[in-house]
């Protein structure tokens, strides 16, 4: 059963002046001793600019400091605060309550990631797959050699990959992906989009080894272009585009 609290009942130490309030439902679950998750409900005041993360932090400040949530930059740069907000993966710091058009906001841990506690999830596997595709420039020479020059690029060459370099590893794409929902071995849209980011970089010489890595049973062929990853990306990375362009190399449409 959901537990309900409100700022009026608790007589908050910090006065909050707002005419509007929402019910914030927070999923509580500790895998160490809970069998299943329960929702706790809090009535939280908000302003036009209040984000979901701020509402959660209000709850931590005034009602229950034990709510587990990971956050850092509060400006959609660190990629820490991804969670399911009203059923869709979003960054809590980048989602305003007023934009959700709902009196009840339900926050849950991101799907397709193991839960640490409450809203915090483990990113280990995503970082593993990210690391697997070698997210760095591969070439024999280096800018660090004393007589070497910078690896210059034209603006056009930069445009080929700069969009994909915006990835903040927040995991929203992996959470929205339908294949990730059932396939534990799938590389995932985050890593595949990053594979394209380096393959499309004119300075990189590791295309063949990356393509070989993703051309496997649970690799790029498990993407069916549903596009959900791109719809939830908070940085405009558009992983679906990167994956299809990457697949173009394997199908011989690109060289």
């Amino acid at each position, binding site marked *: 059963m959901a537990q309900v609290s409100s700022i009026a009942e608790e007589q908050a130490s910090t006065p909050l002046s707002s005419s509007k309030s929402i019910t914030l439902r927070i999923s509580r679950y500790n895998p160490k001793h809970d069998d299943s998750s329960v929702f706790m409900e809090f009535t939280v005041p908000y302003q036009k600019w209040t984000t979901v993360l701020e509402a959660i932090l209000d709850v931590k400040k005034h009602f229950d400091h034990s709510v587990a949530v990971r956050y850092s930059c509060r400006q959609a740069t660190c990629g820490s605060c991804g969670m399911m907000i009203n059923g869709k993966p979003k960054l809590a710091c980048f989602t305003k309550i007023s934009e959700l058009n709902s009196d009840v906001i339900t926050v849950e841990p991101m799907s397709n990631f193991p839960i640490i506690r409450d809203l915090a999830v483990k990113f280990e596997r995503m970082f593993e797959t990210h690391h697997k595709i070698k997210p760095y420039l591969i070439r024999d020479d280096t800018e660090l050699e004393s007589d070497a020059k910078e690896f210059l690029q034209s603006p056009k060459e930069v445009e080929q990959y700069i969009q994909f370099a915006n990835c903040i590893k927040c995991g929203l794409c992996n959470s929205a992906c339908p*294949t990730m929902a*059932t*396939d*534990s*071995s799938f590389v995932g849209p985050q890593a595949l989009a990053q594979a394209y980011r380096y393959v499309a970089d004119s300075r990189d010489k590791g295309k063949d080894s990356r393509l070989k890595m993703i051309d496997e*049973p*649970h690799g790029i062929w*498990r993407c069916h272009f549903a596009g959900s990853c791109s719809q939830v990306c908070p940085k405009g990375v558009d992983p679906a585009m990167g994956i299809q362009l990457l697949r173009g190399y394997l*199908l011989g449409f690109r060289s």
Partner: protein
Amino acid sequence: MKIHYGTAIAAVALVAVHVLMRLTQGFAESLEYESVLANYKFVPYAIMLELILVLLSIHGFNGLRVILLELKQGRIYEKAVSYGCLAAMIGLIAYGSRTIIVVNMGLV
């Protein structure tokens, strides 16, 4: 997946011919016994039916294999799904080919 794309493109063209044959002859007339028999005995058409059978079997069972492999993982399960789908595909091709060959050779 390349085989999935290839069989799909080839099958679309051939199935279109197969369906148009039903429509140009008149749907009910085209399904009459003598008409169907004549279709099977016309060698180019029988070859086309055989090609459709092979292409759609590969495409269909490979598609099923992909869906099943995405639902559950594990070495034994994945091998069972792959070999199971391959066996079903070969079985269906053999069963369908028997019909085409027997009727084409006039053994009915």
